[in-house]
């Protein structure tokens, strides 16, 4: 068994940023394990621009954004293995991996950073009735076929779900000469970024039908048509509202699921809300020395936030192996998300271990206009920030200061909620 200080599972944006920050913090033996044939993760198929506005103050494409971090990994001579699948992570941080070249092998890691990203919710999990023909793709799979393999799935497209990849693919397929007939979204609001609705649908005259879903799929061998219907406030289709669209392609953009099979097998505790690990202020899971960041932790809206979060995971993993991450004294403050705030990352804070500033990220469960993000220390409201609009498709954040928390010894819980006034 070989030994590494830090093993990073996944060489996408989270894994890359975590590796770079751990190296900057002085960690010598870092290994990134990546299952694809190159680093960069899903960014490699995201050839549209709009990445990096926060981090680099310029608009980059996905591959360009990834390359900014890859360059640093190369310059710092951080080790990585490609075409390598991690098969298992044990509770005592033994990572089992496999590839053509190296066979199956085990690595003892001082710390593990989980950066596996997420996957798309497939058709099967949506229980859409109808036939099961060819021509139905998750939006990301279609994106890979078009942008990486160079093949078009079809010419007439219907999209179910308005997640960002679906919106991006509406534009991409249009630019490739396909006709995108409609985007149907089950919820009364889009799951994607406002800017993507404007730039990918509105600019191309593609209709977005909110509170609509697919109720039938036709075509025994290949997709020939889908039927879309309006849904009531419980998500049930309303009879009489059906509209049939002939099409040869149905793209699904109905949510992303953090890919945590390895984490679960290792015994990492999961949040039922995010489907990602429950982490403390150091982005550490319930297993000491196992950290999580990026979309495996919670699905992000912008990659910039992934990079930032992953940098913190890298720094904290470095502290852990250097013995600088003090043992938890068991007096963590719990962060509770309620009244419209669906979850927070992290979900506990140990003031002794936190940095001077801690960004707490969360998402809201519905669209809120002219409402307030409030933070309570026990029962005392300490923050009350007005937001013109908040939507489930966009992440929100509050910043907690160590100074302020230190002023409140004995503080048990911090509550994040949305208030109308």
């Amino acid at each position, binding site marked *: 068994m070989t030994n590494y200080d830090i093993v990073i599972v996944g060489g996408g944006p989270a894994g890359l940023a975590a590796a770079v920050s751990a190296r900057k913090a002085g960690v010598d033996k870092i290994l990134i394990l990546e*299952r694809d044939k190159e680093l960069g993760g899903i960014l490699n198929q995201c050839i549209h621009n709009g990445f990096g506005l926060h981090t680099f103050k310029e608009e980059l494409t996905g591959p360009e954004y990834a390359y900014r971090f890859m360059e640093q990994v190369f310059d710092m001579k951080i080790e990585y293995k490609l*075409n390598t*699948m991690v*098969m298992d992570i044990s509770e005592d941080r033994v990572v*089992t991996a*496999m*590839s*053509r*070249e*190296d*066979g*199956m*092998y*085990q690595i003892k890691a001082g710390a593990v950073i989980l950066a596996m990203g997420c*996957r*798309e919710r*497939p*058709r*099967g*999990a949506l*229980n859409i*009735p*109808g*036939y*099961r*023909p*060819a021509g139905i*793709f*998750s939006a*990301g*799979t279609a994106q*890979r*076929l*078009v942008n*990486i*393999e*160079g*093949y*078009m*799935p*079809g*010419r007439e497209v219907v999209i179910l779900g308005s997640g960002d990849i679906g919106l991006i693919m509406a534009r991409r397929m249009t630019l*490739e*000469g396909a006709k995108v007939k409609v985007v149907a979204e089950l919820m009364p609001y889009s799951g994607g970024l406002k800017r993507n609705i404007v730039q990918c649908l509105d600019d191309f005259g593609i209709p977005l039908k909110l509170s609509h879903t697919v*109720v*039938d*799929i*036709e075509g*025994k*061998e*290949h997709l020939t048509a889908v039927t879309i219907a309006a849904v009531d406030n419980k998500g049930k*289709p309303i009879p009489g509202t059906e509209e049939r669209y002939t099409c*040869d392609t149905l793209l699904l953009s109905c949510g992303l699921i953090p890919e945590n*099979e390895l984490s679960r097998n290792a015994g990492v505790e999961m949040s039922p809300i995010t489907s990602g690990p429950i982490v403390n202020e150091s982005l550490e899971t319930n297993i000491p020395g196992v950290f999580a960041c990026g979309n495996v932790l919670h699905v992000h809206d912008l990659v910039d936030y992934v990079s930032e979060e992953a940098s913190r995971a890298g720094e904290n993993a470095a502290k852990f192996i250097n013995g600088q991450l003090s043992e938890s004294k068991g007096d963590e403050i719990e962060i509770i998300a309620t009244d419209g705030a669906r979850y927070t990352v992290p979900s506990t804070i140990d003031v002794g271990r936190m940095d001077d500033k801690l960004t707490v990220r969360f998402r809201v469960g519905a669209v809120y206009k002219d409402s307030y993000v409030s933070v309570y220390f026990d029962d005392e409201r300490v923050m009350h920030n007005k937001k013109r609009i908040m939507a489930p498709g966009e992440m929100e954040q509050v910043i907690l200061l160590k100074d302020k928390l230190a002023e409140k010894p004995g503080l048990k819980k911090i509550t994040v909620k949305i208030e109308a006034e």
Partner: protein
Amino acid sequence: MLYDVIIIGAGVSGSAIARELSRYEANVCVLEKCEDVCEGTSKANSAIVHAGFDAAAGSLMAKLNVRGNEMMDDLCRDLDIPFKRNGSMVVCIHKEALDGLKDLYDRGVTNGVKGLKILTREEALEMEPNLSDNVEGALYAPTGGIICPFKLCIAMAENANVNGVDFRFNTQVENITSDENGLWHIRTNNGEYVSRYVVNAAGVHSGEIHNMVSKADDKIEIIPRRGDYCLLDKEVGNHVSHTIFPQPTNLGKGVLVSPTVHGNLIVGPTAIDIENKEGTNTTAEGINDLIAKANDHVKNLPMRKVITSFAGLRAHEARHEFIIGEVDGAPHFIDCAAIESPGLTSSPAIGEMVGNMLKDMMGLSAKANWISTRKDVMNPENLTIEERNELIKKNPAYGNIICRCESISEGEILDAIHRPLGARSLDGVKRRTRAGMGRCQAGFCSPKTMEILHRELGLPYEEITKSGGRSNIVLERTKNQKGGNQ
């Protein structure tokens, strides 16, 4: 070429008959309208090996069910496919229906089912804690089992092929006539086939095939009885450990809940008589109905963990009995029609019965060098790290994981493509290896599997299909790529 026997249909019945006939000196050919074996009813069913207490006492269905069940251990060992006798339970939730369990028990004993036992509420709950709180008692059948229906069908067909049986795919029968010499002429979309004997194993289409040769007063009408199913994530595959049935009704054995032999949980089927013999579409009503019914007998069903839903068609006929035998007035034309549940369980016995029938009719002699066993696509999951490394050293493709959900490597996929009657489509690969059958439902691996099919079979991307016919995955090159190629 003049064949001794032509079998119409490469489902589980046709494949079982083909394997049995491959024991003998005979030229046998299987005609299949789809691009692979196991494309109809055989691929979409409960994947259950029934004990045999359901079918009417004295029926052919009862006899073949019990015999098929008995044959399954040896057959699955010989063909190297997974089979588990997990035991089944028929659960009674109404006190007044407890007598029904006794009736089933008696019928089972008459049918020759071994080990049947009536359980009290307490005994049933002890064996299966997630049964409904309303359970009043249960019939326990230890011989009930679970199997991979794809692998059973594929393995029998593959073994038949190794022993000399021809398979003609994408070959749909259009018309059948006999000549003055008593030979059968089968017209297909791929030319004419001539044979001394014909076996009709055409599943939901077995009525149409029968009616091509039968007398005017001897017509069969197969009613496709659709069953919707939900398949749940392996995470909840142990919600029950036995196959849980409700008490049967006149529409069938009802909605069962069972682990699958691969560790998923299956819930289904509904029973809806339809007209379209290709109507394998699920409906919202069907899925809702089965969820409601399954919850009657098993509590806290984790239906949020559904990874896919599908529908299959049972080849139902009004008499609810297998129709096996020579067609009246059509000498040497053997029906194997109306094979509905328990057809999968009965298939080895159906093969044996039809094989023996033809052996006697034709005076066939046994092949000297018949190969009785085959090895399945390897499952490296059970290997130690050392064994796995040995394997990867010999063939590095086993180190390259293609399907992350089911941990299927390129080595297994290459084996599935290059073995006899190998996979030619994404579904062909899926049914032979499970690549794409996991929780992401091929979102991750399908582009990778396409690349392998493209490379290994020399298929252009545009011709790679999901499951043959017009089920092409991609249509054409992107504009950019077209430009680049000019």
